C-alpha cells in the first residue's frame, strides 16, 4: 500500500498514474480477502473483492480513455502541464 501511495505522490505521467492506482487497489483487494480469511468468511471477502475489482477496472478503462484523448488533443501526458492549461 505504501508503494502505491508513494507512486501516486511522485508520478507525473497520466498513464503511469493509472498503473500506480492499480497497485494501490490491489493491496485493498488483498486486505479484503485476508480479512475474510482471518475471520473464516472467505466468501464474503471474495464478494466484496469482486465489487472492488469491477470498480477498479472501470476506473482504469475510463482513465486510459481519458489519457489517450488528452494525448491526442493536447500532445502531453504530463499532469503539471495539464494543470497549467487553466491559467
Amino acid at each position, binding site marked *: 500500500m*505504501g508503494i502505491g501511495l*508513494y507512486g501516486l505522490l511522485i508520478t507525473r505521467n497520466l498513464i503511469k498514474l493509472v498503473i500506480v492506482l*492499480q497497485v494501490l487497489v490491489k493491496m485493498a483487494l488483498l486486505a479484503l480477502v485476508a480479512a475474510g480469511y482471518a475471520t473464516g468468511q*472467505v466468501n464474503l471477502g471474495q464478494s*466484496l473483492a469482486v465489487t472492488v475489482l469491477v470498480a477498479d*477496472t472501470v476506473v482504469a478503462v475510463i482513465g486510459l480513455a481519458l489519457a489517450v484523448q488528452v494525448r491526442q488533443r493536447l500532445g502531453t501526458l504530463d499532469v503539471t502541464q495539464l494543470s497549467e492549461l487553466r491559467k
Partner: protein
Amino acid sequence: MLVYVALMVGAAVCAAQAVRAQKLLASVLWLAGVSVLLSIVFYLMGAAQIAVIELSVGAGLITVLFVFAISLAGDEGLEAPPIVPRSIAGLLVAFAVALLGLQILPFPAVEQAGATAPFAEVLWQERGLDVLVQLVLIFVGVVGVLGLIGHPQEAADELEEIEGGISDVVSHEYSPAGRPEPDGHRPLRPVDYPQPD
C-alpha cells in the same frame, strides 16, 4: 507461512518496479506480475473465484488495455522531477503506514465464523445490491468510454451523409405527386427505370 511471505515479497518487489520503471510498457508488465502473484495468494487462502477473476481481469484484460493505450498515446517516460520531492513523499508515506500500523497492530483475536454460505449464495443473495452497483458501474464505464473515444462530429457528418443519401433515393424513386397526402397516405407511383439500349 513461508510461501505466503515469499509471494508477498515478490508482489512488493513487482509493485516497486512498476512504480520505478521509466518505460510504461515495463511498468505494465510488472503490474501484471503483481496480479499473478496476488492471484496465487488468493488461491492459497481458499478464495479460488476471486483468484481466477484477478488472473483473467487483472493480469489479462487490464494488461491488454494498457498496452493498447500505450500504443495509441506513446511510451514516453517523463524525465522531469516529481511534483512532490521524493524525500517528502517518502516521509508522508512512512507517516501514513505508521498510523495504519498503530490502528491495526497487534491483530485482535477474531472469532472464526461457523459454516458459511457458498460464494454464489453470498454474491447473489446477501450482496445482491453490490451486483446491481457493479452493473451500473459497467454501464457507466461503457458510456464514459464511448463518450471519450467516440468522435461526435464525425458521427454527425456520417449521419448527415446517410440521411442525404436516403432523401436522394426517395426523391428519385417518387415523383413529386407521390408525396404524402395530408391524411398521411402515400400513393405509390410507377418508377421509370432507365431501359437498356
